[in-house]
Structure formats: C-alpha cells, structure tokens
C-alpha cells in the first residue's frame, strides 16, 4: 500500500479546563489556560497510525492550522506515531470553511489518499470541517466513525447514527471523521516524545497557500448560559404526574 493518510489536528482548550466567559462578552478566556490536542483528533491520529501498522497505509502526516504554539499538538501526534508534521501558521482563528480551504490545499499538495480527522473540535463544537472538506475535494465522507476497514481500494466505515450503527462503503480517496468509540488512543510515551523531537516539522505560512480564509460569521457576543431557576416542590407522585402532563407537557 502506498496510501498517505493526512490527519488534521487542532489545539484546543484542554477538556478538563472549565472555561470562563470573558467579562466583556467578547469570547472565552483562553489566556494562559491549558491547551491540548482535541480529543477526537487523538483518536484520528491513533486510527491512522494503526492503519500504517497494519500495512494499509504508508505514511501518516499530521497538519494543524494555527499559531506557532500549536506545534505542541503536532509533536504529541508524532510521539503517538505520526511520521511528520506540517504547521500552517496563522495568528487568526479560522472558521471550518476556511480551515477546509487550507486543508484542501495541503491534501492536494501531499496527494493524500485518506483524510482521517476528528468529528468535532471541543471548543467550537462545530462538527463541520470534515464534511466541508470532503465536499470541496469532491470526496465521499464517512462521518462519526466507530470502525474502519480498508480493502480493495475502498474503505468501509461503521457510523454512529441516532439509533445505532450504519455501515457505508466509500471509494478512496475519502474523508473519515472519528467518533469516541473508534479506538482508545495510545499514550505518547516518554521515549516516543523524546524521539518525536527529531521528526520533521515543516512550517508553511498560510498566505503562501493563496486560499480564501475570510470569516463569514461575526461573533456578536459570547455569554454564559442562564442559570436554572429553582422550581417548586410537589407533595405526591400523583401531583407530579399531573404537573408533568398539564404544566410541563413532557409526558
């Protein structure tokens, strides 16, 4: 197999951090908080590395679009087994549409045979980049993947849907987005982290790609969700059922 797998990874506020809305409502305080690789992207990296280990792929290339500091997550991905990394450098925060434009340029340059990525980034929770990218490349998509098999130039993807699992078979090249149950990502072990320092990391200035990275959305404000109001106490199960039926209309 000579297939190259491209894995886009995003540096996000760590999932353990309780984010705080900035007092002026301009956004979320990200100054100085712990950042990590988007957990769904760890799963995507793991899957790509497993494909290479099984011989279904030749090389795993990770790419991130972000500031210099986003190198961290590339190093982590390489410690997990990715072969090399590309940092598309920008100080702007891009929307999924813009990220997809960048990724399309990289995928084309790298002649990727498969793009394996997270289904959603846990900061903006858009769950969109993979689908947009697939559309722009004209490739089929296997979103919310819980299992993948590569055989005979096709990829079979089990997808988590609302009531269970659906299986689709896609021609390659394709875009697959990883759901939580696809695998359990390995640790970046210390020896591998040490070795990853020596793997190649290429920096590409975003402007050199000449793609459209404009934003289509303006953030008007960011607010904290309203706190729930304390409700009422009822005296009996019968009264409760009555209220649920007539007042809340949920049953």
């Amino acid at each position, binding site marked *: 197999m000579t297939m190259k797998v491209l894995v886009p990874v995003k540096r996000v*506020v760590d999932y353990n951090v*309780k*984010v705080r*809305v900035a007092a002026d409502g301009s956004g*979320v305080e990200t100054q100085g908080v712990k950042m990590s690789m988007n957990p769904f992207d760890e799963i995507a990296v793991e899957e790509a590395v497993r494909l290479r280990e099984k011989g279904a792929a030749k090389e795993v290339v990770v790419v991130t679009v972000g500031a210099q500091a986003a190198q961290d997550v590339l190093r982590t991905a390489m410690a997990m087994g990715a072969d090399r990394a590309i940092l598309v450098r920008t100080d702007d925060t891009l929307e*999924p*549409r813009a990220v*997809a434009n960048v990724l399309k340029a990289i995928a084309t340059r790298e002649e990727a045979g498969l793009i394996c990525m997270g289904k959603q980034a846990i*900061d903006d*929770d*858009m*769950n*969109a980049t*993979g*689908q*947009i990218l697939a*559309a*722009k490349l004209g490739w*089929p*998509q296997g*979103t919310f993947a819980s299992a993948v098999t590569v055989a005979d130039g096709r990829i*079979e993807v089990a*997808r988590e*849907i*609302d*009531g*269970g*699992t*659906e*299986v*689709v078979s*896609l*021609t390659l090249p*394709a875009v697959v987005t990883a759901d939580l149950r696809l695998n359990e990502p390995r640790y970046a072990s210390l020896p591998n982290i040490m070795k990853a320092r020596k793997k190649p990391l290429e920096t590409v200035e975003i402007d050199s790609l000449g793609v459209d990275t404009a*934003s*289509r*959305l*303006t*953030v*008007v404000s*960011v*607010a*904290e*969700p309203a706190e*729930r109001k*304390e*409700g*009422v*106490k*009822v005296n*009996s*199960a*019968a009264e*409760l*059922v009555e*209220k*649920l039926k007539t007042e*809340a209309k*949920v*049953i």
Partner: protein
Amino acid sequence: MTALVLVEVENGAVRQASRSAVAAASRFGAVDAIVFGDGAQAAAALPGVTRVLSVPGLVNDLAEPAADLLAARAKDYSHIVAAASATGKNILPRLAGLLDVQPIPDVVEIKDVDTFVRPIYAGNALATVRSADSIKVLTVRGSNFDPVAAEGGSATVETIEAPASEKSVFVKVELSASDRPELESARVVISGGKGLKDAANFKLLEPIADKLNAAIGASRAAVDSGFAPNEMQVGQTGKIVAPELYIAVGLSGAIQHLAGMKDSRVIVAINTDPEAPIFKVADYGIVGDLFEVLPTLEKAL
C-alpha cells in the same frame, strides 16, 4: 424568503426534532420540506409547510447524493435547515461545503434572519453569531424550539429523481439491540444515585423507565458502587444528556453530575434531603423517601 427544511421521517412519522426544525424555519418565512425516502405524506401534513420535495429514491440518507441534490435546489432558498441530528450533521455541513458557505450548527435561538445563538465549549458558553452568507445553512437543537403539530397542514408534493451515488454505497444498518432508547438521544432519562443503596434496588427504576420509554442513567457514585455499568454514568466524565424530561432519583446533584444533565428541559428530583443541591436545578421536586415515592409514581403514570 423561503426556508427549506430537511425533514426526517421514521416509521411513517416525522421525528419530533424535525418538527422543531420546521417551527424554527417558519421564523424566516415560508417553509418547504425535503424528505429522503418514503414519508412525503407525513411531511405534507405538517402545519406551515407549503411544498414537499419528495426523493423516494434516496433511501439511506447518504450524504453525498443528498448534499448534491440540496445544492442544486439551494438557490431558491434563503435558509436551509435541519435538526441537529446525526443525519442533519452529516448532510448539512457537506452542503455548506458545496455552496462555499459557513454552516451554523446547533442553533438554540434565532435572533433574526442572520443572527443565531449557539452553544460552544460543551454548552459552557453561548455565542451569538451573525452570518454574512447569502444562503444560511443551519442545524437547530430540537429541545429549544417547540415542535409544530404532526397534523393539520396540507402541502403539495413534488417528486424528484435521486441522483446516483457511486462514491458512497450503503452497506447495512444495525439498530440498538436494547429496547430502551440510548441515553444521549432518549426523550426521557431516569437516573439513580447512591440513595438507591444497592444494585438490586437500582432495578426499581426499570418499571418507570418502561412506562415512559426512558433511558436509564446513573451518578458516578452509583456506578462506582457497582449499581450500574460504566456506560450509564451521566456527568462531566460520563455522558452529556439533554432530554425533555430528566428524573433524578436519590442522587444529590453534585456539580459534576449537573454538568451532564443541566440542559434537560424539565428536571424532576426525588430526594430525602430538602437541602440536596439537585433541588436547586429541579423544576419539580419531591422531598421524600424514594422507596415510597417510586412505587406510587409507577402507579400514577
């Protein structure tokens, strides 16, 4: 302005989340619906829908032909809307990619035709965003929009050929074996905590779950004590749920638990301790012994 809503029909009935999407879309003007597979009739019966585009040939919601078809029709619409369901989230962003617009997922509030509120950071913040795209592609959260009724409308139906799909082929579908709905998508969730005392008592939740077609959840203390398996844990480190109705039985409502269920539409708490923090978020609370309350509740349902 006309909006096009992707309507999902299951077993002959329009999914509630899709009826909410229709309700949300009617804020923009007239509403057309598009239905993949059978079920155009059910969609035509929705109040407020003027026209149904029926694609009986596209049975399995494959994103590639579905997005192609929507893209071909998009120029007639100002907004293209779907429920924030697995189907909506699979197809609509792809459509946005074809149209080169930025999708707006998980809308919880519509401010005006181009301004929307959506949760970010797992619901810890709400962003209000304004879209500059000429066609807005959005998915909406069912729990935030009162659904339109299932009956009462009479839309015209136009049938469309399904485009062929070569790149993507449907293989099979397996629906969950359990006859209980999944935690994350269940309309009703009933969760038990340490107050249930042991694994045998935890079964007391089952008859009520059966009556309400509810999924069963648990607090971490209940999972740690072996009353319920891991995958039932609701909370910060478990599943995040936002059902229509959440019934918390014998659990205190620790902040880590609340993180996983505080967005439920209606919360009911049953607890002996009137000071338990769960009452702070509950719409309806019963201060009482669950061992007495549960059996009477079962009867009253």
